[in-house]
């Protein structure tokens, strides 16, 4: 690990402006992703700004009947919150399907959204990777691709976003609230928050340098039956190969998003509208334009079946 200075930020605006002044600075929240990457020197910040003391750890009701989840709310607390369990079950379920009890106790709402890919070549500093070193090339393309993306990929990167929580946030139409270094705040719809890799796979989100996430807001509950179905190589404590978040209503309408298949949670409006027509039509629309390799083509079949399982689960 590279040496770094450590400081505790006192206000969100102060944290953002400190980070903007120093391109080698990083915020640290739970540290469960950042420290892992720092040990491998994939991340090499020279200045760590601890945001744990910013009092962004509350879950509050919003004026329009939704919930405002502080950026520092731990994954355990969010999953266990009574309002979330009752009205946003898909979010509780997605959180509880991720990582381990120990990790969820530390992991934060913002840190979870910003966790980086688990592409094995991204983790192997001996191999070229456009995400680590822009322009170096992608070792996954033509390499071992079983875990990689099948949708929204580019010639530069075929990595997936590993978060379970983000898939539920996508199906719930959450928005990400931020403060910029100049003190200006904004709200970014979750659909626009994570980016596709394109030619700049190292630019993963809509955040600008120094911009701090202060909260994630959920609109008022939409009702319906919620389910999160995650398929992985072991029954617990493993990342998704494919996951499905869904909310279904009695009349057959609903929403669906996929995890484990793209650089961001994958949701297609036309697929949502096709829900009353059944799984076949939905998965055709969701998976349209997929680009697979012989090693990850199984994800298409798996996604269709996981969709069926999630819908059955929601109805049960």
């Amino acid at each position, binding site marked *: 690990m*590279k*040496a770094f*200075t450590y400081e505790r930020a006192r206000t969100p605006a102060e944290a953002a402006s400190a980070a903007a002044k120093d391109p080698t600075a990083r915020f640290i929240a739970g*540290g469960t992703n950042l420290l892992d990457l720092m040990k491998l020197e994939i991340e090499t910040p020279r200045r*760590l700004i601890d945001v744990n003391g910013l009092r962004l750890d509350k879950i509050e009701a919003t004026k329009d009947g939704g919930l405002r989840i502080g950026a520092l709310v731990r994954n355990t607390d969010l999953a266990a919150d009574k309002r979330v*369990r009752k009205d946003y079950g898909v979010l509780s379920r997605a959180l509880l399907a991720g*990582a381990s*009890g*120990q990790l969820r106790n530390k992991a934060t709402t913002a840190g979870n959204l910003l966790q980086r890919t688990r592409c094995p070549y991204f983790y192997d500093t001996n191999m070229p990777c456009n995400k680590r070193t822009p322009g170096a090339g992608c070792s996954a393309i033509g390499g071992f691709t079983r875990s990689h993306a099948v949708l929204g990929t580019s010639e530069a990167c075929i990595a997936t976003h590993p978060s379970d929580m983000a898939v539920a946030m996508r199906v719930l139409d959450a928005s990400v609230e931020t403060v910029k270094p100049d003190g200006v705040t904004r709200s970014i719809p979750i659909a626009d928050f994570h980016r596709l890799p394109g030619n700049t796979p190292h630019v993963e989100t809509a955040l600008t340098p120094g911009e701090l996430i202060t909260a994630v807001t959920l609109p008022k509950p939409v009702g319906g039956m919620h389910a999160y179905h995650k398929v992985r190589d072991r029954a617990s404590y493993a990342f998704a190969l494919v996951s499905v978040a869904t909310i279904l209503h009695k009349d057959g309408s609903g929403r669906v998003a996929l995890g484990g298949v793209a650089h961001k949670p994958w949701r297609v409006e036309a697929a949502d509208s096709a829900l009353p027509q059944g799984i076949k039509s939905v998965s055709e629309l969701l998976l349209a334009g997929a680009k697979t390799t012989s090693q990850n083509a199984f994800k298409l079949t798996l996604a269709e079946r996981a969709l069926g399982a999630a819908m059955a689960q929601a109805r049960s």
Partner: protein
Amino acid sequence: MADTEDLSLSRRDLMAAGAASAAIAGAPATASAATPDAPHLAQVTFKVNGQKRSLTLDTRTTLLDALREHLRLTGTKKGCDHGQCGACTVIVDGRRINSCLSLAVMHEGDEITTIEGLGAPDKLHPLQAAFIKHDGYQCGYCTPGQICSAKAVLDEIKAGVPSHVTADLTDALKVTAEELRERMSGNICRCGAYSNIVEAIGEVAGGLSKGEMA
């Protein structure tokens, strides 16, 4: 209490080294300014097993290394050092965490409990006794992490924190073997003592019937 004796490079040594090089080369009298890769030191005070400890540490020191290398509390184990095995599990302010993925300097004022704080050979914690009774280990390397985790798992169930296998998110929680297995999944046992671990925890929880153990 100052615990700087254990540091390979104490703050005083660094200051002295800085002063010496300053005298020779006119360099600034702090170690960190000497080269960009020089360690940055910071002070932290927390309670470990009820005892107040103050350390001056390289900011890079994980809580795990602070406990093992600086405080010589070697009960907590380092398995993977990357959050993947649970051997380093300790309890901080009542919640279990992986001490390998947490910086020591981020624990100012925290109360940390390690396996040494849960029980002692002449006064075992009920979970320690149950692990012995049920053979909840073979080599024992994962055991301190398993037991710290198990202690927190029972508290989490009491506090109503649901799990991935909880059938109804709005119902009261039950202690079942399925629940224990899922909640303990962050603790890997390379010897595969899992079924005995679940039996040991189940006995302490008092809620598992023989049938539920299967």
